[in-house]
């Protein structure tokens, strides 16, 4: 039993442990998983003096309400998140991208993400959780990862193995930019769609559906017409791939996606835009813009440089 732990008073909607995810397992049907918004995951860890690949608490929409027992510890929250910190009888509103120190009996109440989906709670120390294939990342559909692959629940404890001795308070300014266009590369079945369908894909707006989760994002809007075949022989998928099933509504594969699929692929979201894509809440409008592979590779280099730059300023 750990002396330092958080008790979950309210778990939130989909609260899980995540890290960088697990690789080399697609061939047996296991996706990468890992934190959905990688940049916010890394920043949160840096703010509490953790190793960048440390396990973290990810939440979607409503986050957890936690009560702490133990010695002094830092925490930080990243994303667009509304939360409060309760110390004795005073409750203050917290700010994202700042670390706070709390002590025995204090509470963190993560009320909701604002116009976004995912938020991150980093605790300054090492979580006492089991890894599976070298990663804690919980995949609730396959019940893989720490916590028996299940999301966090009321009454359970999040135990800390160790608290960081470095308790420097850190702060950074970062704005989660909202972009109008999500850039995509043409998919391997692009020619399965009618000229009108291809035009719709690049020129019309789509709305993020409520039926979106860590596995996939469903879109609603004008139907994309298929003129060849609405099924293909199942083949491998990667995150960001946009499949269009027979009903003509695109589905974007996200981090916990099924590893093979049999719907034609019209495109794939570029890596540089993935963090921003996953933060688009149901009801958001998406418009796709086509770019080529070499531009996508350049954009990723810029994204990486910007990420490293942000981290180095913390």
């Amino acid at each position: 039993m750990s002396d330092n732990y958080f008790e979950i008073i309210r778990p939130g909607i989909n609260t899980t442990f995540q890290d960088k995810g697990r690789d080399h397992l697609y061939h047996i049907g296991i996706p990468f998983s890992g934190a959905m918004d990688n940049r916010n995951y890394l920043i949160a860890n840096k703010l509490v003096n953790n190793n960048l690949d440390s396990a973290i608490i990810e939440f979607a929409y409503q986050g957890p309400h936690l009560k702490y027992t133990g010695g002094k510890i830092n925490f930080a929250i990243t994303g667009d998140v509304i939360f409060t910190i309760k110390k004795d009888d005073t409750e203050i509103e917290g700010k994202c991208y700042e670390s706070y120190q709390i002590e025995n009996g204090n509470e963190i109440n993560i009320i909701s993400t604002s116009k976004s989906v995912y938020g991150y709670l980093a605790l300054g120390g090492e979580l006492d959780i089991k890894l599976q294939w070298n990663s804690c990342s919980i995949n609730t559909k396959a019940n893989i990862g720490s916590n028996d692959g299940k999301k966090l629940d009321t009454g359970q404890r999040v135990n800390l193995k160790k608290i960081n001795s470095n308790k420097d308070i850190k702060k950074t300014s970062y704005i989660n930019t909202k972009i109008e266009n999500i850039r995509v590369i043409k998919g391997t079945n692009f020619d399965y769609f009618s000229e009108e369908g291809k035009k719709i894909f690049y020129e019309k707006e789509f709305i993020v559906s409520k039926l979106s989760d860590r596995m996939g994002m469903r879109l609603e809007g004008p139907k994309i017409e298929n003129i060849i075949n609405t099924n293909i022989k199942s083949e491998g998928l990667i995150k960001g791939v946009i499949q269009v099933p027979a009903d003509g509504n695109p589905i974007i594969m996200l981090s916990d996606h099924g590893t093979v699929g049999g719907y034609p692929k019209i495109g794939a979201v570029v890596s540089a835009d993935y963090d921003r894509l996953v933060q688009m809440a149901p009801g958001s409008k998406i418009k796709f813009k086509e770019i080529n592979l070499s531009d996508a590779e350049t954009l990723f280099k810029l994204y990486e440089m910007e990420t490293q730059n942000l981290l180095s300023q913390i």
Partner: protein
Amino acid sequence: MIKNISNLGDTALYCDFGNEVNKSINSQVIKYFKTIKEKKVKGINNLTPSYNKLIISYDLKQTNFNEVKKNIENLNVETNLKLNTKRIEIPVCCHESLSLDVKRLEKILNLSRDKILENFLNKEYFCYMTGFIAGMPFLGDLDQNMRAQRLETPRVKVPKGSVGLTEQFANIYTFESPGGWNIFGNTPVKVFDSSLEDEPTLINPGDTVTFKEISLDQYKNYNE
């Protein structure tokens, strides 16, 4: 052999081995998969073999499309590579309580339940791939007269262990999942076990699978 290599998004190579689904093409895919897995090519972080495609995922922080493509093209793949495959017998119970779509199958195939069972058991299956959900094997080929389309409306929950049939393939649901295959039976065997990190999947691409019928009593009292 790989007929064409293109890109899937900006983090994967899409290796096309052809359009047909047969053992010979699939064995080529598996040979490439095994060779690349052994060689540990720089930046490659995942491989997804399927019937006639191989998706090679890479870390864009370490490498890029042209570099991985060149590495794959220069790779020496032993086409006579002996695949180290297994023969596996899977016990299956086809009692009506577990054979959820038996009536539908009887109607579509125009065969009696006993005849479907006989055809199903008298066949050796080849594992083309595993995936979609963790450890799910895609087994083929069912005879022409055993091929049924998937359900018009997929089930929200297919029970764990369900053995499904669709078109020329049979599969096994390794855990409860949504799905549209015609469910004909259920196996008590753990086809996927995440606690066995080194070998979580019982059936792997290239393996040969046969099914053996067990009674409902044997199913309920099954002990691995």
